[in-house]
């Protein structure tokens, strides 16, 4: 545990936090959570928005080092390419916490801990529900997939995890897959096209709630009943998604919680006090069926 080489001798902690961007509601909820809990925990937060660019994040980290913050936290845009700047941080004795996503550096001393979700796991959970749902049927199951932004980590991993599970059984067939850029509008547009070119769709797997919500509109427009004629699985569990789940329009949601703030502040304090922290803290995430959704709907924060 390093004590920070801080210039500010006072006891308030200054944290530099580099966020990926504000590309989705999920992300902004994540930002808000970090900002709010920093305030509650009395941590001075230096916030920087990288607008989805890794180079901006690296620049932000550099500038945090320059500003001699006590601790750095960031959600890496991608896994690779952090070694150089993390080494600089290490040289400057500034501890680093990763949130939301890990980096693939061999040198694990470059960061103290990683706090976040596991996108592959999320994809697997979605797949497992599907396998469970259709375990008694022998008919082929036609699946269409709405992917996230091409090349983005959640899209890659949620796709891979899902495929790993359903790929084991040949009756599951992914008949169409296309990117919906994580947005409702694209989700609707792509689904409309899917519906026209593929008459028999049994299941829709969307990499986030928003695309699923857009697709629901398309399905309704085509005169089908979402949740019945076409089963829908999504990831995230934002409020609108949970509402749709409770209304029976979505069948299953894998939670991916953006509310990392409080945990992050705790970890930061521990790290700065020199306490031992586990190398990996996975956020507590669950899955929701329609019944569960109805129960928890009123208590959801975002």
């Amino acid at each position: 545990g390093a004590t920070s080489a801080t210039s500010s001798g006072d006891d308030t902690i200054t944290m530099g936090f580099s966020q990926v961007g504000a590309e989705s509601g999920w992300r902004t909820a994540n930002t808000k959570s970090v900002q709010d809990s920093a305030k509650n925990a009395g941590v001075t937060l230096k916030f920087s928005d990288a607008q989805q660019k890794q180079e901006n994040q690296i620049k932000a980290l550099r500038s945090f080092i320059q500003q001699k913050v006590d601790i750095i936290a960031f959600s890496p845009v991608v896994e690779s390419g952090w070694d150089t700047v993390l080494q600089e941080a290490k040289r400057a004795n500034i501890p680093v916490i990763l949130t939301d996503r890990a980096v693939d550096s061999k040198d694990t001393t470059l960061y103290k801990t990683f706090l976040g979700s596991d996108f592959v796991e999320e994809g697997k959970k979605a797949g497992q529900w599907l396998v469970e749902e259709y375990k008694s049927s022998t008919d082929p199951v036609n699946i269409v997939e709405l992917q996230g932004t091409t090349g983005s980590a959640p899209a890659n991993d949620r796709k891979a995890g899902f495929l790993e599970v359903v790929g084991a059984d040949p009756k599951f067939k992914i008949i169409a897959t296309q990117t919906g850029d994580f947005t409702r509008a694209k989700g609707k547009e792509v689904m409309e096209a899917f519906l026209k070119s593929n008459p028999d769709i049994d299941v829709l797997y969307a990499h986030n709630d928003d695309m699923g919500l857009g697709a629901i509109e398309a399905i309704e427009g085509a005169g089908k009943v979402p949740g019945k004629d076409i089963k829908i699985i999504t990831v995230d569990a934002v409020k609108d998604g949970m509402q749709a789940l409770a209304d029976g329009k979505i069948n299953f949601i894998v939670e991916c919680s953006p509310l990392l703030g409080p945990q992050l502040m705790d970890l930061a304090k521990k790290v700065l006090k020199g306490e031992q922290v586990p190398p990996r803290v996975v956020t507590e995430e669950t899955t929701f069926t329609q019944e569960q959704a109805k129960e928890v709907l009123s208590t959801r924060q975002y």
Partner: protein
Amino acid sequence: MRRLLWPLVILALLLLVNVVFTPNFLSIQMRDGHLYGSLIDILRFGAPLMLVSLGMTLVIATGGIDLSVGSVVAISGALACLQISQDAGVAWAVALALGLSVLLGAWNGFLVATVGIQPIIATLILMVAGRGLAQLITDGQIITIVNPAYKLIGGGYLLAVPFGILLVLAVLAVTAFLVRRLALGLLIEAVGGNAEASRLAGVRSKGIIIVVYAFAALCAGLAGLMISSNVSSADGNNAGLWIELDAILAVVIGGTSLLGGRFSLGGTILGALIIQTLTTTIYSIGVPPETTLLFKALVVTVVCLIQSPAFRAKVLGRRRRPPAPGPVPGEKVRVSA
């Protein structure tokens, strides 16, 4: 219109590809009392792009460019949905959103015409800041609304026809009236063709440029309403992202030069349709997401090659004529006295 021939050919080719993959692609049915089918989808989803491209056409005709339309799309949708979510009337929300759009457009025009900033930078400012403004309005979240009246704009039907299509037709008619019946078109083309000559001919180019940017923003604002109404929600982060690129592409495919001057509204509409058809084609023939861009690159290249008279002349036949044989030997050069 000879100029529209090649874009039309390309559009037809794209549709043909679809028919090969999806035989009933061209069929249009009545479902739940409204028209239903892939062609309708193309028009419906292409509507916002057509609107934005119409405005962009006029801006480009003046020799400018507007990068901020995407942000205006987001702002307009966000503001309208915010108002509606706070129980404001739909008419008021729409008016407010469009009013703000026009204001933002006029601001662009002011920077270009009066302050004299290069259009790309002037509108880049609003492109960046406007996206922030949209997120500020939505607080970075997606505002979901339930409002049948608002839903009509982008997702509803009037007399079985998607309302968005009617809206585009109306805007197209108004634009065509302004530029071809009234003299706006001539003055725009004059400013874009030779700004100094137009000034010396007494054209009030500043006013025209401001009007044109305001009009482009109005179109973008309308498109923003359409997009948000279609999915009953406002997404300040993503609505209209990169639409400026598609719009410029549509204008260029439609045969309008980025250098300004002559423009073609019909060409632009065709250009937008080509882009939307291409998008739909990608979805329906199952191009994998990883190769989508390669496919797009291919089509765009083919489109611009086919459109280029130089290409048609040099490659698709009509080779250079061999030099004609000389005059009959012995014939003297005429030298009269």
